[in-house]
């Protein structure tokens, strides 16, 4: 018995030595396996039984957290003293819940999942969560992917991008206005770097333009600026980092936006056919020149009448009455809906011809 008592004392001593050593020499989320701890040379003679007693005592003191590592082997992580203190004040149920929430880190965990993992009854679980939240140990978060689920994570953590959806979400909801503002700013900025402005007084040029029809990028109305493209292989187009800096300096964003967020937006603009990625995303070029960008952006909020040049050009199916006809599927000559009895053609003809 005496030996047991003696070893009891030495266990506490050894355990705190072990803890100190781990705390001072390893990063806070280092995972320790048995061999790792034995290898520290703190437990004499690599006595496994003794080591396990030590770790158990640390776990009891909430200074160690027992985990299952690879291949179901036992492993531990250290807990800081502050956290340990918190945990020591918790009821066993609460600490169970806390540990589960802790284990999911910045991703947070769904209440139901906590239930299944702890095996606690719903009412008990609710009480635990309430008390933990009251102590300000955990917080509930909104997950964009599962807007209807109640999720928790430790109070001190910032939710991961997966949970918030990234910079473009505010409280789990996509912030459309914000996106549009920044996207508009980016398009214009890129556009300014994508075209060369030339004075339209250049007599020879204008003459040339007049002889050819279908001028797209070069407007020639009086007072209009004229833009010409850079040659292929030009390297002065803006990059993601240039654009990120520009956005952050512009004052249109309350938070600093990271390059990933800007890239997301640039991709979107590419899908919209407004920008073109060059060298697989190394640089970006705008399709429209700055004047055209300004015009189309000015028109958007002004009214619902969508400008024609903002769309792809139309084709036969979008023009002909049949292309947009609600009863197209039913229509057959001699049928209830037929080209003869059709009521869409006359208005269409009238509109097109004006009589």
């Amino acid at each position, binding site marked *: 018995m005496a030996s047991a008592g003696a070893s009891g004392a030495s266990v506490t001593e050894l355990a705190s030595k072990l803890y100190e050593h781990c705390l001072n020499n390893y990063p806070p989320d280092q995972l320790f396996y048995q061999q790792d701890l034995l290898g520290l040379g703190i437990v004499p003679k690599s006595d496994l039984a003794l080591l396990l007693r030590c770790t158990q005592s640390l776990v009891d003191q909430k200074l160690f957290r027992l985990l299952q590592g690879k291949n179901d082997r036992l492993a531990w992580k250290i807990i800081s003293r502050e956290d340990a203190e918190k945990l020591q004040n918790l009821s066993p149920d609460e600490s169970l819940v806390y540990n589960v929430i802790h284990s999911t880190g910045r991703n947070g965990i769904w209440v139901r999942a906590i239930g299944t993992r702890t095996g606690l009854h719903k009412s008990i679980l609710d009480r635990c969560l309430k008390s933990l939240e009251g102590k300000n140990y955990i917080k509930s978060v909104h997950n964009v992917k599962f807007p209807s689920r109640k999720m928790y994570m430790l109070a001190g953590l910032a939710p991961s991008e997966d949970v918030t*959806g990234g910079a473009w979400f505010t409280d789990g909801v996509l912030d459309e206005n914000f996106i549009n503002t920044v996207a508009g700013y980016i398009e214009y900025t890129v556009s300014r770097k994508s075209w*060369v402005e030339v004075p339209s007084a250049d007599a020879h040029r204008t003459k040339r333009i007049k002889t050819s029809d279908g001028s797209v990028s070069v407007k020639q109305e009086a007072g209009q600026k004229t833009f*010409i493209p850079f040659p292929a292989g030009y390297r002065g187009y803006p990059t993601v980092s240039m654009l990120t800096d520009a956005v952050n300096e512009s004052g249109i964003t309350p938070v600093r936006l990271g390059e990933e967020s800007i890239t997301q937006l640039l991709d979107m603009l590419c899908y919209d056919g407004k920008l073109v990625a060059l060298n697989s995303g190394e640089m970006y070029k705008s399709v429209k020149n700055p004047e055209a960008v300004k015009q189309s952006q000015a028109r958007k909020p002004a009214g619902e009448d969508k400008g024609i040049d903002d769309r792809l*050009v139309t084709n036969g199916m979008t023009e002909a009455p049949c292309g947009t006809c609600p009863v197209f599927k039913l229509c057959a000559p001699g049928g209830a809906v037929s080209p*003869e009895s*059709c009521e869409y053609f006359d208005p269409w003809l009238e509109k097109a011809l004006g009589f």
Partner: protein
Amino acid sequence: MTSQYAGELCTLLVEDNFGELFARIFSTLNRYDRLSFSRLKFYSRLSNAQLRHGLAAMIQQHLVYHYTSYDDGITYYEPNMQSAYYLVRSGKILELIEHRLGKYAATVMSTIMFLGHAQVGYLETLPALRPSNSDVNRASEERGGIHETEEYHGEEARQETEEHRETEGRPNGLNSDYTSSERPALLHPTLKALAGHGYILRVRDAQFQSYADNALDAERTIKSRPDIKALKGKKLDEAVTEGTLELLKERLDGDLTRGLMFNGVPRGAKRRHTTGATEASNKKARVDYAAVDEDEDGGEENEWSDDDFGEDTIPMESGITVRINYEKLDVALRNRRFLELAERDSSPVTAEVYESLLRRIEYQTAKCRDTTEIPREGEEGEHYSVPVPLRAVVEDVDLFLDLAGSVGPMEVSQPINRRGKRPLEETTNGAAHDGTNGGQSDGNRTYEVDQHLCLLAQPPYSLTSKRMVSGLITWTVEFRHLARKLRHLELERIIEARYGDVALRVVRVLHDKGKLDEKRLQEISLLPFKDLRQVLASMQTGGFVDLQEVPRDALRQPSKTIFLWFYDPDRVGNSVLEDTYKAMSRCLQRLRFERSRLKEFLEKTERSDVKGNEERYLSEAELTLLGQWRAKEALLLGEVARLDEMVAVIRDY
């Protein structure tokens, strides 16, 4: 081309162009696909005489294939959907020809079109094709063709004053000296021009049979060859396939360009740049094109054969029967679409350079693609056009085109935060002036043309691509890539018009990334869930996107199922194609209905005494009505042509 709506449309086209008898035969054949004479008679309930007359004419028009079986000696008839369909494209084709080779060429073309096929000797006898002095013109004024010819002369005369006085003055003079009883002076050079461009081809017997019949026939021939008979197994199969294809090619080949091409360019087509505008076409048809053909043996001398025109004297053989080469014309029309794509985002100068390249490519491209089926997304390989040497493009580009002024400087790179644009503008100016005022050296011009072509090679369209061929810079076009682009754009246009720009973004994301669940889709498209769901749902109803369920357990519980959205351009394309056929039919049917509403009035305007003298015989109100009717007709037909453009993009290019 065997769908219900395509059949409906083709029958309508046949009826509108050739009347009821043809339509009756055509629709019967369309319904039963392949019929012997007696069966055809039974189903169509036509008399022997009607049927014989109809079939003979339809065969001439290439609307019906016929094939006499080796086994039973019975002749079978089949509808030729392709040529029936091309009736709708004729307007577009004539417009293209007129633009390229002038009014007279278009008249010749339309005459051949109208006849189905025609012997050169027969064309010579047609008054409508006899370009002559104005007396003759006036005498036969009611013939549409002559109208055009006359205009052609007007244009020519105008051009004549502008340039090449010495060369052009002469033939004109000749024309008025020699009366129309002489060999038509313009016809042969024009036919040669058409042949050189590949727009017409020689009619071969095999062309009257369907491709499948020809293939079987050729295979039979090959198999009966003794050297093939000696082969066995795999070798035999290979030899048969290869031999069949070769024989087919030989039998169907109606190529007339041989000997009319020089260095990959139709003879005489090279002087485009000297005039500085595309209007050069007339002159081309006239002088340059009256190209000589050393390879052609026969042919007497005509009145052109004095020394000034020594090189363009030999006429087309009058025994040749020619028809329209729709495959080649599709190539030209497709190039025009590529050019339109370039015009959208590039400067007019760049587009013009592109046109020069495309023209060169057109000359050496026989058809749009090798397969008859519509290629499936991701299953077609690359298909590059012939490489055109940069030098050749430079040669073709208008000398007065200011190449330098429309491309910015390479060296100037502005840091993103700097506002001042001063130095930049100055450089541009400087460059522009260098280019225009200073005499341009050849090297400079070559470099500049290359610059424009490089611009076109850039994303998003990659309209050109550069190739080094034995140390020389050449430029090509990747046909399949661009044809696909056109197809996608066509579908995207519909999507944008029906479901808005948000839908367009979603579809492009799906197209690019493949199958996606709603969450990923939202992250990429950055659309609020509500909007996203709404737009996906309505597109699903419209058949533009689809949802795939991937159950994660055997019970297929919805909560454990992943839902993936996807966009299948093949499927969407096919259904849009069907819809387009249908819409075309409806437009034509409506036109017919509109016509029937005005039946009596229109009959009056078509009376032989009224026609051409409308002002004299019709009242004010009637004239207005006539004008309105014509506008209506033009609008509806124009819409059909627009729809045909979509069919071309989805099906033919």
